Each structure stands twice: as C-alpha cells, then as structure tokens.
C-alpha cells in the first residue's frame, strides 16, 4: 500500500466519521409551535423569533462552543399533532429540551410526556395550570393568566367597577381565563352578572353582546386569542355600549387594533412591556432587551413585533442560560432552569424557584390601552 493510498483512506475514514463527531458537538433543541392554523399568530412569530435567535447564537459560536440545531415542528394548534411531535422529538431526535407548544391545550397534552421522559419543556402558552401544580420538567415563559386577571380586577377597583359581564372563547386559553376570573372575582369584590362562551371561529357576536347589554353591567371582560376579540369590541360599540371593555393579554397584537379600527379605542388590557418598548423610560431594566429584540425582529421580518414572539425569545434565553451553566445533560439543565434568578426577558424579570416555574411577578404586566390606533400605557 502506497503512502498516498493510506493517506487518502485515512482522509476517507475521517470524512465518514466527521458527521458523527459533529453531531456530538451540537445542541439539539426541539420546538413545537402552531406555525399554521387558528393560532398561527402565536406560532408564526414564535418560530421566526427562534430562527432569528439561533442564527444569532450560532454566528457568535454557539452556546459553550456548541452550535444549536433547531428542529421546529408545526402542530397547527392540534393537541394530537403536538403529542406525536413531542414523542418524535424526544424518542427519535433525542432533543435536549422542547420549546413550546404555543397554546395551553397542547401544552397540557404533552406535559406528562415531558415529565416521564425527563425532557425540559419551556411552554410559550399562558394558562396557569401548566405550572400549577408544578411539574419538575415543565416551565413556561408568558405571565400567568391569574396575574392578568388580578391586574384587571385591581384596575376595576380603581375605576369603581363591581358588576361585570364575561365573554370567553371555547379554547384552552379562553377556558383557563374564565376559570381564573370566576375563581378570583369574589375576593376582589367583583360580581360576575353574566358569563358567555362563544366559538373561537365566530364571525359575529352581536347576540352575545346583546345579552351582556341586557344584563346592565359596568364593564365587559373578553378572554380569547382569536380574531373574535376584535369582533367583540366592534359589536359592543355598534350596539351603543359605552362601558369600559377589558381584554386579556391575548390582545397584544396591533393587527387586532387595526382590524377593529375606532372600536378598539380605549380598550384596556394587561400586557408585557414589549408593546410599548419605545415609550419606556431609559431607566427601565427591560428597555435594552425589548428595544434590541423589537428592532432586530422588525428589520429582519418586516412585520410588527408581538408579545407572543417574545415568549419564545424568553424560552430560548432561559434555556441558553441554563445550558451555559449546566451543560447538555437534561437533568442538570432542568436544575439550572429552576435556579435562574434575575434573567431580564421580554415578558419581565424571571426569578425561578422550585415552587414557581414561571418566575414572573405581578409587575411583569403593565396596563395598556389603545389611543389613536397605538398601544400606550394606561394613565393612572
């Protein structure tokens, strides 16, 4: 065997082995997001945000020298698909962690899977039940819906409102919000006079709003994430209702304000500060993160940033912090996630603990309103 042949064989062997060696030097992160389907306004900005962040992280040399490989699965907001994708990511792809799903229903469907397989799950969905009771491998980045409800009730108290009508859509998000409203109303001195659930695909809600009008309430609270939340306010104003309308943090998408036009003026809702990043004082600790995420996202995708993409941003941020500290062992990553303190994200400042796998306080929400077609902080 000539020297040249030996050398070329060695080269061939190393070429064959190379992909293997490469695979060990990467961090596989799965994501199950509703990129299409009824919750695409959640999943689409979330997927875009993750792609942007992973490109950034890898351009800077990865996490601890290891490149991140992102595997996004589009669940279309279907729980069945979320389950099969979760199994695929955990068993076949053997990912380090899963970001998502986008919706509460899907997250609850795969919560047990993540727990059994000991795979850290960082949900981008809002419902309280995801982290309450705490499951050791399950975390979530959006503020809790109970906190949104409490902020709304506090605002109502200031405005002297005690009798309300509640509307919610028949989705996981709508139901979770409705449950929290009903649970927390009494202790905040709020009386729910009428509570109605509508179909998430509803195209007009005049009859539902008429029922609320007949009940003579002082304010309406609507809890949904679909276009229906922009239809509700339009129908209410059309029927001559002038009472305050409160929405959930699901209203944080300027597209709905544009869709509802003048009817959106004066709607009050709790939201993360991303929507008013430019209007924050320079002293605000979140300002830097918010402005840089907003500018980068809007420059890259030529569309308005929404708080939902921010939830994916926070999930990736927490995960990369945990990997930096704990390496690529699932159990260690989990332990590090639980121990993260003072991480400045888009939704707020995360202080995780063994009893709180969300880590955000009431102050993560700001009460916002709509003025001249823009989100502005509610004047106190």
């Amino acid at each position: 065997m000539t020297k040249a042949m030996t050398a070329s064989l060695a080269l061939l062997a190393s070429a064959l082995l190379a992909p293997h060696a490469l695979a060990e030097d990467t961090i596989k992160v799965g994501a199950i997001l509703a990129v299409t389907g009824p919750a695409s306004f959640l999943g689409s900005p979330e997927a875009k945000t993750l792609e942007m962040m992973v490109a950034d992280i890898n351009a800077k040399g990865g996490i601890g020298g290891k490149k991140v490989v992102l595997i996004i699965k589009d669940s279309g907001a279907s729980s069945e698909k979320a389950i099969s994708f979760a199994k695929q990511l955990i068993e076949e792809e053997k990912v380090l962690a899963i970001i998502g799903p986008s919706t509460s229903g899907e997250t609850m469907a795969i919560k047990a899977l993540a727990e059994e397989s000991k795979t850290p799950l960082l949900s981008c969905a809002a419902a309280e039940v995801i982290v309450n009771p705490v499951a050791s491998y399950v975390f979530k980045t959006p503020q809790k819906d109970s906190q949104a409800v409490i902020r709304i009730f506090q605002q109502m108290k200031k405005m002297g409102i005690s009798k309300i009508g509640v509307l919610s859509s028949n989705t996981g998000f709508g139901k979770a919000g409705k449950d929290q409203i009903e649970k927390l109303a009494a202790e905040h001195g709020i009386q729910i006079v009428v509570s109605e659930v509508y179909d998430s695909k509803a195209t007009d809600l005049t009859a539902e709003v008429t029922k609320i009008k007949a009940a003579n309430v002082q304010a309406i609270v609507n809890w949904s994430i679909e276009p229906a939340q922009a239809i509700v306010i339009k129908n209410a104003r059309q029927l001559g209702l002038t009472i305050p309308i409160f929405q959930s943090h699901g209203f944080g998408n300027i597209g709905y304000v544009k869709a509802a036009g003048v009817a959106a003026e004066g709607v009050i809702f709790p939201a993360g500060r991303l929507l008013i990043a430019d209007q924050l004082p320079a002293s605000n600790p979140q300002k830097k993160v918010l402005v840089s995420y907003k500018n980068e996202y809007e420059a890259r995708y030529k569309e308005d940033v929404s708080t939902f993409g921010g939830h994916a941003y926070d999930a990736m941020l927490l995960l990369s912090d945990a990997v930096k500290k704990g390496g690529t062992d699932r159990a260690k990553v989990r332990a590090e996630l639980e121990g993260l303190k003072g991480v400045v994200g888009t939704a707020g400042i995360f202080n995780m603990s063994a009893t709180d796998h969300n880590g955000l306080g009431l102050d993560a929400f700001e009460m916002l309103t709509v003025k001249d077609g823009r989100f502005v902080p509610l004047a106190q």
Partner: protein
Amino acid sequence: MSLAFFIQYLVAGITYGTIYAVVGMGFNIIYNTTGIINFAQGEFVMLGGMVAVSLHHHLPLPAAIAGAVLVTMAVGALIELIFIHWLSKPTVLRMIIVTIGISILIREAALLVWGHDVRVLPYFTGNEISAISLGGALISPQVIWVVAVCAVMVLLTTAFFQWTMLGRQMRACASNRVGAAVCGLPIRNLVTLSFALSAGMGALAGCVVCPITYTQYGMGTGLAIKGFTVAILGGLGNSLGAVAAGLLLGVVESFTVSALPAAYKDTISIAILLGVLFVRPSGLFGSRAATRA
C-alpha cells in the same frame, strides 16, 4: 324581554343569517352544473376578501372589489382547468376529494402570500361603530350591504339558471351528464365556467362580509361550514332556499343565545340540520328529485 331587545336579537340573527346565506349561495352554482359540493368554496370567499384588501391599497374600494372578483374567478377557472378538466372519469367522489385538496392548497398558498394576520376592508358606509337605529335596536350599515348583495345575487342566479340558455345548459349538465353530452353540450367548458362563476360569487361574498368578519387565511373553513349547512338546509341548488335557510338558522342561533348559554348555539344549529335531513333529505325548500343527482 323588552321589545327593543327582541328586535336586537332579531337583527343579530339577520346579521348571522345573511353572512351564512351569502356564503352558502356560492355552493349552488357548481352543484347546479356538476352535482358536487365544492369543498374549496370557503377558500374562494377568503381569497376574495384577501385580494380586495391587497388591491384596496392601490385602488378605490369598488374597483378593488371588482378586481378581487375577477382575480378569484380566474383562479377558480384555472383550478378547474388544472385539476379537474382533464379527468377522464370525473366521478362525484373523485371530484369531492379533489376539491378538498384544492381547499388545503389555496389555504396554504394564502398563508405564504399574506401571512397569518387578520386583514380588513373598510366599512362600505360609515365605520366600525356606526349603527342605524331600528325600533330601538341598532344595526350596522354593513349588514344592510350584505342583505342587498345577497338579494342581487339571488335575483341574478335565479334568472340565470331559469331563463338563460347558458344557465339551462349548466343545469342539464348536472341532471344528466351523458344526455347533455349526447345533445352536443360542451360539458367540460360548462364545468369550467361554473367554477369561475362560483369563485366569483364566493369572492363577492368575501368582500361584502369582510368588514364584519375580517379575513384571515384560514377563515374559509369556518365560513364554509355554516354556508354549507344553509345550502343543504335550503335545498342544494336553490338560491332563494339558501337565503331563507340562512336567515332561519341565524335567527334561531341568535334567540338560542338569548335563552341558553351561548355555548349551545352551534349545537342547536347542527341539531336542526340533522333533524331536517332526517325528515326531508332534500332540504326545506329543495325538490325531492334533486336529491337523486
């Protein structure tokens, strides 16, 4: 219930009903020619709204709507030419599966072109909150537009299928395809035309309901289910029947909300549909012969 609230529920029902009816009527044209239900009809509705919103950035509203109707008609005809025209044995089952496939295709294409955001046309008259008072109840001017467009569509389609040669030829196609071919009718071209007309009606419906319901790439399915329900309820192929059934369903839904939790609204409407289909399979206003097709 006071009179004002009674009228308000009635008005809400009429709003629902006309939206359902204006969408449901689009199903009839393709049915009248081919005897099949086009499961992509909801996507034509969505496409009409989307194209109109895009064109409205450059054109005045009437021109944008006319443009959207023409574009969607072209899309409808093109789809028929590509996917259905050349089928040697276009059986009903095969065409149904093809139209389901087309609906998915259009939906995904719309997602790529327009993204996931909701889009909206301005109100034809007034704005989002303007309302006309009617015996103490308030009605949006856009609802009156939908009613008017619905009425015009009923008149035109009924006249077309009853009294024009082309319309009669299309009906002949559905009732006896072989017979129609033997008589020398250009069946395949008539089917292409029916797809174009159906798409155009869907697009017009999509434009006129857009200010009320908004347009989003995935909204076609939801609208189509209700449109389909009223088309069946009214008797397939019968435009006036679809309107009557739409109004009936809308008003029933609205008063269901007044008396029961709103969550039961769709349960009631589906129960009515099933009940009618058991008792009168041809729909409330359909002729019994039509069901054999």
